[in-house]
């Protein structure tokens, strides 16, 4: 009886999920604080916003659809090179650059999604890894286009909306990255709290049974994979536009692996998991790597082991457990 009172219709259930909570509003207001509190760290803040967007894109496929990818940097790099090349060859308008990058990464994502949707488990992990490595090698060998190991030079980003120029302190860069992150976050949030989002979670739990209740698993996986690739492409384009350089590193396996670490650290399968993970990871790296980058990898490894063994749902999962216990008491 209590159940029927709280959940009346599917529509009401989904609406209940998508209601804005005070903690969420506080989180987004807090993202504005760096403008006043840490004006010296705005370029780090813009890096964090970009990485958060990238992590959010991985969360869509890994956290919600259960597709473990070790090669998501392929789309990040595709977007970065698309925006970078567009700017290098004469069109530096940032917003249309983002659209072009999203299109390019989306096309690559859509093309590969047909393969991705057919496999699970180890073969899937190996295929995503293989595509990432393949694209990295391609960019490396096409030095005439990408600049190879020297990176893509000569990018010039025009003023944002024809007015805000990208200053040395990163005011515009952070504002721009944050705005794009927020807009795409709203899109992802809407998507996750839709019937399509629910179907994705069903696919994550049982891939074979979802078609039996009318949800075509493969078609859904193709859709979300394409969306996620486009989003990762936008993140890459943001990095290319704000730093005005693209390196092979943007396609590397390390970037894919680090992204996975961040997402799991924050909590996969939660909208804010990637965001929190990116903030914690990037701030910690900024603090530690100044001393000696090699030690930093030790701590990140140790952190991973601890998270997997003791905190299976990431920081946000752990916090949710604590608040649930506190409410019960």
């Amino acid at each position, binding site marked *: 009886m209590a159940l029927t009172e709280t959940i009346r219709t599917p529509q009401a259930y989904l609406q209940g999920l998508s209601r804005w909570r005070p903690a969420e509003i506080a989180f987004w207001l807090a993202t504005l604080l760096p403008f006043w509190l840490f004006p010296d760290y705005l370029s780090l803040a813009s890096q964090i916003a970009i990485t958060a967007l990238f992590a959010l894109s991985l969360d869509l496929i890994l956290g919600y659809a259960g597709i*473990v990818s070790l090669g998501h940097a392929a789309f990040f790099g595709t977007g970065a090179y698309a925006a970078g090349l567009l700017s290098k060859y004469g069109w530096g308008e940032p917003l249309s650059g983002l659209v072009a990058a999203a299109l390019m990464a989306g096309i690559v994502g859509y093309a590969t999604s047909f*393969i991705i949707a057919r496999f699970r*488990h180890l*073969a899937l992990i190996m295929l995503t890894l293989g595509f990432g490595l393949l694209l990295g090698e391609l960019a490396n060998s096409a030095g005439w286009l990408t600049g190879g190991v020297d990176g893509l030079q000569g990018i010039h980003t025009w003023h944002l909306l024809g007015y805000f120029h990208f200053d040395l302190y990163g005011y515009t860069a952070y504002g721009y990255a944050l705005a794009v992150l927020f807009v795409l976050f709203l899109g992802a949030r809407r998507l996750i709290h839709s019937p399509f989002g629910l179907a994705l979670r069903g696919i994550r739990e049982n891939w074979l049974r979802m078609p039996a209740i009318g949800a075509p698993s493969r078609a859904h996986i193709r859709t979300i994979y394409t969306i996620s690739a486009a989003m990762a492409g936008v993140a890459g384009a943001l990095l290319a536009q704000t730093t005005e350089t693209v390196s092979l590193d943007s396609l590397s396996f390390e970037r894919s692996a680090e992204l996975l670490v961040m997402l799991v650290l924050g909590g996969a399968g939660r909208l804010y998991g990637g965001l929190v993970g990116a903030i914690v990871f990037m701030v910690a790296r900024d603090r530690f790597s100044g001393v000696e980058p090699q030690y930093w*990898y030790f701590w990140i490894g140790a952190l*991973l082991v601890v998270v997997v063994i003791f905190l299976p749902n990431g920081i946000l999962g752990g916090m949710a457990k604590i608040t649930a216990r506190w409410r019960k008491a």
Partner: protein
Amino acid sequence: MLPPIVGVLFDGFAYGMLLFLLSIGQSVTLGMMNFINLAHCAFAMLGGYVTVTLVNGYGWPFFAALPVAFAAAALASIVFERLLYRRLYKATDLDQVLLTIGITFMSVAVAAYIFTTAQQPVQLPSYLRQSIEILGLRLAVYRLILIALSLIITGVLVAALEYTRFGAQVRAAVDNERMARGLGINVDRTFAITFALGSGLAGLGGALAIEIVGLDPSFAFTYLVYVLIVVSVGGLGSIRGSFAAAAVLGISDIAGKYYVPQAGAFFIYLVMISLLMWRPAGLFGRR
């Protein structure tokens, strides 16, 4: 007189045998427990560093250091299996991937801390550095020994798996783990022993790899990719499959670098993707 392509084939096959030693343990443990161990090459790296320390630091002969490299990697893997891996046999792919990537990150950092990031050469006795000439073709003695050693190990492994009681238990556990348990086979113990053996072979491979590909802390990640390719292309739990995949991979890698150096590793990844799409369970895989 033999054409130069034979020399490329020889070098490629020696390289392939190295990859086989590095990956055979991974193949069997993956096939047996479905445990994705991305830290496998960290054990190989341990074997390499043990050899470097013993040979360069304490003046041990190279061949005396090899069994120690094997034992060190096997022992380390037993400790990790007991403390960490055992908890995650029933966990998701993602958790296993993350835990073992974490261990690999840590091993890379520890190796860099103790040995710095510089390449570590190993001092080989002079007779190993020579090459012999057969039909106008110069073959390095070290590579010949590497091939011979790998073939002996393969033979021993295949025979042990086919004709011993323990081998039968391993095969049963790979084929159907639940059924094997039902028949009273102690799968956990079988797995622990196999895991230690596989890691030991990786350690041996790491020790033998120094002379061919060098040794630095990035070894654990660089060769992980190759090992994963061998395992997934060869098929899980199949010694024959891993052997064939490693030989093909080694030869095509060396031939690619020799004939089309500008393409880099591009072809290998392309071949891997196509093979996986054609047969997701690998060339010799059954599942």
